[in-house]
């Protein structure tokens, strides 16, 4: 789908966020970008989204460059429009693409149902819990049926119970949607639970240190599975090596 080749990004003031980072994304991948804070994970995500440009290296799409709506983005905060209902927030990407409201609403309602928010269509963000707001944000990112879903530590600010529930629900949604997901996290447990490819990054300037493949098919019992514990240990050892 996308090849990221030797990209580097340096910010004004001399901060070198990324150096020589390379990554290949394939259809229906679930990739976790794992690394300490400030290692350039979010910068790499922004480069993939086209929200920023690399100073060196390049990003090459296999078939065609992404059109608006081909990429969904979920930020660390839900970043909803506070004055709009859940329905209007999910409708937003379609509205920006010029889809009439009456044609969009069936998809919007289906997406809200898929993330478990049936009955909350008319709720404003302040009437929803942190987890529910994040569900709206995920529904908004998926409503355009993107080829690529980029998630920047979306569950980092949530409590552990909500996080576990949302991780399981995200996997369910991803299996149905069939898109490629790049999930930025600094939690080894989260990366091990969610991803089939765990990409470890070094501290700043961020580089891809190594990649760990997972064959876990996460479900309700996965966290009790010895294979999960073994994967967590493997990632932790890899992360220690990456941190030097």
């Amino acid at each position, binding site marked *: 789908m996308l090849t990221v080749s030797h990209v580097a990004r340096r910010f004004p003031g001399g901060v070198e966020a990324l150096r020589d980072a390379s990554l290949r994304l394939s259809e229906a991948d679930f990739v976790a970008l794992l690394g300490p804070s400030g290692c350039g994970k979010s910068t790499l995500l922004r480069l993939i989204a086209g*929200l920023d440009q690399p100073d060196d290296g390049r990003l090459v799409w296999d078939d065609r460059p992404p*059109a*608006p*709506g081909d990429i969904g*983005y979920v930020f660390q*905060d839900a970043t909803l*429009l506070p*004055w709009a209902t859940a329905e209007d927030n999910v409708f*937003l990407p379609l509205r*920006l693409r010029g889809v009439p409201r009456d044609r969009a609403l069936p998809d919007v309602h289906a997406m809200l149902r898929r993330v478990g928010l049936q009955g909350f269509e008319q709720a404003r963000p302040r009437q929803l819990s942190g987890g529910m707001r994040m569900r709206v944000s995920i529904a908004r990112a998926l409503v355009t049926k993107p080829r690529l879903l980029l998630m920047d530590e979306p569950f980092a600010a949530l409590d552990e119970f909500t996080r576990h529930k949302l991780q399981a629900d995200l996997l369910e949604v991803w299996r149905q949607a069939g898109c490629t997901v790049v999930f930025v996290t600094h939690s080894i447990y989260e990366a091990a639970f969610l991803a089939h490819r765990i990409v470890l990054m070094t501290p700043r300037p961020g580089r891809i240190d190594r990649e760990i493949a997972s064959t876990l098919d996460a479900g309700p019992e996965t966290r009790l599975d010895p294979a999960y514990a073994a994967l967590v240990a493997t990632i932790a050892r890899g992360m220690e090596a990456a941190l030097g």
Partner: protein
Amino acid sequence: MKFAPFLFGLLALALWEAAVRIGDVPVYELPGPIAIVGAFVADPVGLLQALASTLFVTFTALLVAAILSLAMAIAMSASRLAQAAIQPWAVALQVTPLPAIAPLIIIWVGEPFIALVVCATIVAFFPLFANTATGLASAPPELNDLFRLYGASRWRTMALLRLPAALPYFLSGLRISGGLALVGAVVAELVAGSGGFASGLAYRILEASFRLEMPRMFAALVLLALAGIVLNFGLGALGQAILRRRQ
């Protein structure tokens, strides 16, 4: 508790009346509240007409300031060139004292009503402009990124993100500017009144002071203060109602 300010006001008025009576203070130095009420009752139509004239200037200026500030803040938010061109002039306008330029404006404009509106608009403009400009820049960068990601044009981002984000700031500026528009209208009327224009409440104050009619002067002042209070609370309530409806 709710009536405490009202009761305190009544007590202060009673003490004031008692003090001028016991001290036998001449009415041309300090009239008591009863004399002031008497002056109002003697010519309520004249004073209320003058108040209406001042308020008409105030609301017209507030409307003009709101339209101008919104247009200029949007232009500034959309273009760095516009920002560089507008901002210094807006600041210059804010720091120039109105009494210093009001005579010039009155001479240049000629038509008294328009001259008063221009003066009051100058005073009311800056808080609205500064607040709206801040509000237009207040949307989180992530939401701006999201609009970019979905290919939203600059004007669509303005209409669907920046303007709604600026609404609470604009309403807060409107409340501040409401009071300032009244002050601007009064100051302009004082300058214009000394030049012979006779209609607003400030002119009635000037006229009363020339004739040493202190109770009438105080009555006009009280009307002005009440108008300012009502304007402030009214615009505050309007802002809250709009935001509550939106939320």
